[in-house]
């Protein structure tokens, strides 16, 4: 059964969603590194993008989260009410000399580095889908 959540466009709601997804991933035996770093950071980025950029913090709009997790895979879809964006065009390389001291522009880059796959498409609203393969303790895909 997928986990389905809906939150208002309030960045204060992000941590509770992340905690709930982490509990599901912990139960599916995802690695400590995934639980402590990859999942919380990438999911926080997806949720904050949806709230700040997609819904522009309009409290009348919500963010829907759909999570499927099993022994092999985590798939999270984050849907906002925005018009969507071009994932490739919007992903900056924050490590270049020109971008290194920018205060913004690292969110999509981190999502794509920390997840195995990041996709963006239109459904009822704009959807970002994050996919992460569970790895065994020796680092191989489970």
């Amino acid at each position, binding site marked *: 059964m997928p986990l389905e959540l809906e939150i208002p466009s309030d*960045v*204060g709601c*992000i*941590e509770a969603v992340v905690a709930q997804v982490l509990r599901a991933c912990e139960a599916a035996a995802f690695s400590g*590194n995934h639980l*402590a*770093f990859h999942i*919380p*950071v990438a999911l*926080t*980025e997806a949720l*904050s993008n949806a709230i*700040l950029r997609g819904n522009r913090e309009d409290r009348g709009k919500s963010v829907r989260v759909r999570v499927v997790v099993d022994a092999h895979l985590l798939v999270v879809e984050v849907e906002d009410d925005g018009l969507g964006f071009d994932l490739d065009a919007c992903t900056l390389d*924050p*490590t270049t000399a020109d971008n*290194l*001291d*920018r*205060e*913004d*522009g*690292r*969110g999509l*880059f*981190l999502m794509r*580095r920390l997840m195995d796959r990041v996709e963006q498409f239109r459904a009822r609203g704009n959807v970002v889908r994050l996919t992460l393969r569970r790895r065994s303790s020796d680092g191989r895909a489970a």
Partner: protein
Amino acid sequence: MSFTVKKANDVTIFEVEGTLIVGNRQELKQKVLEELETGARKVLVDFEKTTYIDSSGLGVLVSLAKKIRESGGDLRLANLNDDLQTLFELTKLDTLFQISESRDRALESF
């Protein structure tokens, strides 16, 4: 997130407990700027009790480093766990900040 402010000689230390993310980054920024207003110039952020940092948290650190540098001061970091160290390396922010493995080392470096 909660944070504690401590002083060690002329260094102002901010201990960040929990997350430093989009929902709470402004609290840290405001407190550091208040300390800057009252004369703090050597600022150390200690991440020993920090769980994770997102891009907004990184952005606040970059912003604060600029403001402190413009005021003639310096912002340094200490006690990054392996995941936080990886985060700084992925974003190459380890080249922008002076990062020490312990608070004592950081204090000695000022």
